[in-house]
């Protein structure tokens, strides 16, 4: 296995008296397809919010490619190579699909040094890869659910990440649409991007992930290959309802 790209060491996060994360430690290797599962309220989204800088962790440390991230604002983390999609799509609604991608390309990749036309051409390439090229000039608030999910991934990709965190990118999609998104994620991983997938659709997580961590009540209850996770009685009890 490659060396760790992301090291989460004893991370904790409190909301008032509620411990959303308690001493969570996870290592994610470069190029890995990593699954994060757990029942609602188990701390999955809190953890990725801490990784991406949306929230500050109260305790522990988060190290990305050897650099401590704690205290860095979200945009700095994105510039260091961590991109994420959101559970509920958050498009830039006043912009076209293409413009949605131009923003991270300008702010992360080129820092305003490239002409708009060239940046747009680059954004078009990403849209082609993800199957949204025909919607490039469409206002992003006109998209269907699956198109919004793809836009979330495309916008994250435009930041040229080394680590992509996909937060329930398949929620609310049909079986065909799930396969479509899964195919995109496999393709991105094949291009060298490490992917953390948070998902409730078990078939998709099991098919995609090389390794999975299951959280419950802010703690890790099981870690291992998909087969190990499925066979674990704690996971079955906490998550699968057995």
């Amino acid at each position, binding site marked *: 296995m490659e060396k760790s790209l992301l090291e989460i060491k004893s991370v904790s996060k409190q909301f008032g008296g509620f411990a959303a994360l308690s001493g969570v430690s996870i290592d994610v290797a470069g190029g890995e397809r990593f699954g994060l599962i757990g029942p609602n309220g188990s701390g999955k989204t809190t953890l990725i919010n801490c990784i*991406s800088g*949306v929230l500050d962790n109260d305790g522990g440390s988060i190290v990305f490619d050897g650099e401590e991230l704690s205290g860095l604002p979200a*945009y700095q983390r994105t510039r260091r190579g961590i991109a994420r999609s*959101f559970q509920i799509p*958050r498009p*830039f609604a006043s*912009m076209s699909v293409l413009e949605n991608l131009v923003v991270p390309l300008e*702010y992360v990749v080129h820092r305003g040094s490239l002409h708009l036309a060239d940046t747009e051409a680059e954004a078009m390439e990403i849209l082609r890869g993800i199957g949204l090229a025909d919607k490039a000039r469409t206002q992003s608030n006109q998209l269907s659910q699956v198109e919004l999910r793809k836009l979330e991934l495309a916008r994250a990709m435009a930041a040229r990440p080394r680590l992509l965190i996909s937060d329930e990118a398949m929620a609310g999609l049909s079986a065909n649409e799930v396969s479509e998104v899964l195919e995109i994620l496999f393709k991105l991983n094949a291009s060298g991007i490490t992917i953390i997938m948070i998902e409730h659709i078990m078939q998709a997580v099991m098919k995609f992930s090389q390794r999975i961590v299951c959280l419950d009540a802010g703690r890790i209850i099981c870690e291992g290959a998909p087969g190990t996770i499925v066979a674990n009685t704690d996971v079955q009890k906490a998550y699968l309802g057995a």
Partner: protein
Amino acid sequence: MLRFTVGALAVLGLIAALPLAVHNEYWFFAGYVVLQYIVLATAWNILGGYAGYVNFGTGAFFAVGAYTAVALYKAFALPLGLQILAGAAASGLLGFGVGMLTLRLRGIFFSIATIAVAIVLETVVLNWQYVGGAKGLPILRPAETPFFGNYTVWLFFVMALIALVAVGSARYVETSWIGRGLRAIRDNEGAAECSGVPTLKLKLGAATLSGALMGAAGAPYAQYLSFIEPTSSFSLNHAVNALAMPIIGGMGHWIGPVIGAVLLGTLQQVVTVTVSSEVNVLVVGVMLVVFVVAAPEGILGLVKRWKKASSK
């Protein structure tokens, strides 16, 4: 960019040539107010329209520019150009300061803070005797200027110049990556930050630029009236107009506040002369309600809709 610069220079040339055709000073006196509102509305739109952060304290930024100019004029008899630069710097700093304190928070905190700043600063000026305190201060301005003759005509030209700088700055911000960053903040700040947009820096930059332009608009105010006092300088009318004009014109494009200011500013001047200046606020209020209900994207939105419908 070249087309805009040529257009702006042509407009400025036309304005400079106006005194040759228009001999009644009143037109310049009234036109000055319309130009002043172009600056205020454009400045407001940089933060309120592009980034979605509503400033209710336009009067404070305007008055800080005005009183900075008055204080420097009284102390050092600074020329108008330097007064404007100093007024812009002081209001820009105010924008930066208020932003530093409140723009880390999302939502309405900035808006509330701008109201508070206006009240606090007005109270300070009311008790600042050097610039006249509550009773105000008369300003002796030169009667004539070398090129324009009448001083009101000169001030009209100066305000036109400030308006062009304001509109040019807004256009640059809007069409550059800075503008796209501000729009991303307005649409979804969390997603913008995760897309690499340094949201706080951009908001601070916009607050500083917006404040500076408002201060520049306020700096010649005392010279224009030959008098300054706190109530009209800090007037809530500045805030209401600066907010209403972009909403009526259309907030998404730099020309929107210009259209709103020309329309509303001219209408207010007509109402002032034909009815009463007190009716001005009513005019703004009625138009604001009509546009918010019937055309929330302003006149530009109406034009866009009309174009879309006629192309079908």
